[in-house]
């Protein structure tokens, strides 16, 4: 009589030490940055985590795709249709959607790590608090900049492909627009990103942080508008409270356009708005470092 070998044997492979190379701090930095990108975009996470970021991206890109589609059939299609289509010099819808995207992205990058205790794992790895914060800020930068530039790149490439002047000619003629769009996007990133990070520093959950950021941004416009329009003696200075107006004012300056922003109406020059943005970035940096030093 033969005896069958037992099935379903579990083999204990034991412990195998790591014998390969160890990468340096730079690689660790990029690992944190990459993790930030995946976290915000919901990659390698459940489907419901992907809905919001990808929906916002689709909404942001649709006007560009439609514009390119129309231009393919209408040779004399004009880009400058304010309020209807995204253009290089004026992207009002895009800025609004970017604000929503930032409202969700910045808290997502820092709050779960803090509230779920993951910071203690970072603290045990060969990276500094500054490395971590810079990597997270870098991830936000990459995401928001990509978010703002993607629709414009779609337009740039799409209009070039359908341009009667030829692809290369269009690219060269509008290269300056793209550079200006990039600089304007950086200004939006600095404003929205800084303000959203400040809110994320003190919130315990992502959704309330996003709501507070959006309410704060639009609330600042309303407050600034009311006080400025009231004709109060210091009303002019209150116009600087309207945070979302500053990147818009600077963008108009970059594109040499005339716009309608509260600081502009109050009589400020665009460089004042730029200064406000730079102060906001500096204050955010100081607050973040203080907060995380306290956490350690």
């Amino acid at each position: 009589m033969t005896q069958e070998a037992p099935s379903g044997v579990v083999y204990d492979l034991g412990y195998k030490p790591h014998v390969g190379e160890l990468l340096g701090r730079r690689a660790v930095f990029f690992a944190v940055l990459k993790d930030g990108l995946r976290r915000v975009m919901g990659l390698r996470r459940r489907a419901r985590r992907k809905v919001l970021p990808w929906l916002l991206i689709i909404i942001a890109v649709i006007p560009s795709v439609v514009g390119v589609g129309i231009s393919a059939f209408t040779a004399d299609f004009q880009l400058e249709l304010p309020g209807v289509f995204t253009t290089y010099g004026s992207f009002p819808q895009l800025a609004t959607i970017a604000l929503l995207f930032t409202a969700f992205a910045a808290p997502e990058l820092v709050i779960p790590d803090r509230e779920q205790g993951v910071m203690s794992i970072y603290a045990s790895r060969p990276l500094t608090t500054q490395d971590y914060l810079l990597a997270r800020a870098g991830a936000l930068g990459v995401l928001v900049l990509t978010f703002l530039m993607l629709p414009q790149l779609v337009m740039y490439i799409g209009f070039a492909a359908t341009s009667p002047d030829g692809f290369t000619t269009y690219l060269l003629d509008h290269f300056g627009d793209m550079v200006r769009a990039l600089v304007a996007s950086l200004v939006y990133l600095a404003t929205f990103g800084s303000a959203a990070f400040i809110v994320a520093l003190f919130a315990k959950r992502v959704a309330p942080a996003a709501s507070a950021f959006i309410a704060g941004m639009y609330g600042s416009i309303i407050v600034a508008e009311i006080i400025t329009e009231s004709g109060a003696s210091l009303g002019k200075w209150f116009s600087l409270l309207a945070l979302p107006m500053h990147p818009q004012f600077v963008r108009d300056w970059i594109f040499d356009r005339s716009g309608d922003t509260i600081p502009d109406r109050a009589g400020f020059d665009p460089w004042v708005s730029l200064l406000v943005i730079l102060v906001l970035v500096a204050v955010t940096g100081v607050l973040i470092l203080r907060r995380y030093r306290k956490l350690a």
Partner: protein
Amino acid sequence: MNIIETSGLGHAYGDVVALHGLELELEGGTIGLVGANGAGKTTLVKILLGILTPTLGSVKVFGIPVAERPLEVRARVGYMPERDCLPEDQTASDFVTYTAELAGLPKKASRQRASDVLTLVGLHEERFRPIGEFSTGMKQRTKLAQAIVHDPDLVLLDEPTSGLDPQGREDMLSLVGRLGGFGINVVTSSHVLTDIEQTCDWVVMLDGGKVLRSGPLSGLGQTGVIEVELTSPVDPFMAWLEANGASTHYDGRVIFVRAERNGFEMVRDGLTATESGLRRLRESSTSLEDIFMGRST
């Protein structure tokens, strides 16, 4: 070579002194760090990782001064925190892979190592499930996996059995006990003394921020007293022992014998000489808990 050396190590949170003049020289192995809550265990662990800078004295891990070169130390150390430290929305595989990358392992090696250590801690089947769906025991195993995924030379475990049921606790202690065999030095911080007795070969007792005792666990429980139970009358046996220089004490059931030397041989000779019947014979031992509690009584 000492894996941990402290010299006059002290730390205070404002007016509250957490550690006071710690002098430690710990060689490799499995080391237990015991003490009541607030004894300074977690503060010491944080200082060893370079998260906290000591207010007094110095500490070296593998001969590296932690305060000056914390990143070098962290590259060689793993840490399993006591409290929650796992992202609920990631799979165990993704998170442990990420923590390996955080230690500097290349992407491919990180994924392989994550798979290996998750198998080692018994989460091979569950490694692709979100951590949010895990039981407490599975989360503890994941925490242990991330602590060893980068093949550290030393792993610091902060209350590894915290929140576990009896079976989960046994499983975790078994895993901790195996780490030494992998060439990983272990420092287990715990207030559960039996956990330390079960897994460690060296113990550091902290009390009020000071070192109460630091020594090998093997000799710690020895008392030099022999316990004897007889089936026959005890008086002749006790008289013979005392006549031969031993001291005895009888509690109505057990005779406690303390001899200067060769205690067991003396008991054997006494049993033969008095023709006493032996029921039980053993060396009296004491637990860590006895030692720890005995300090305050």
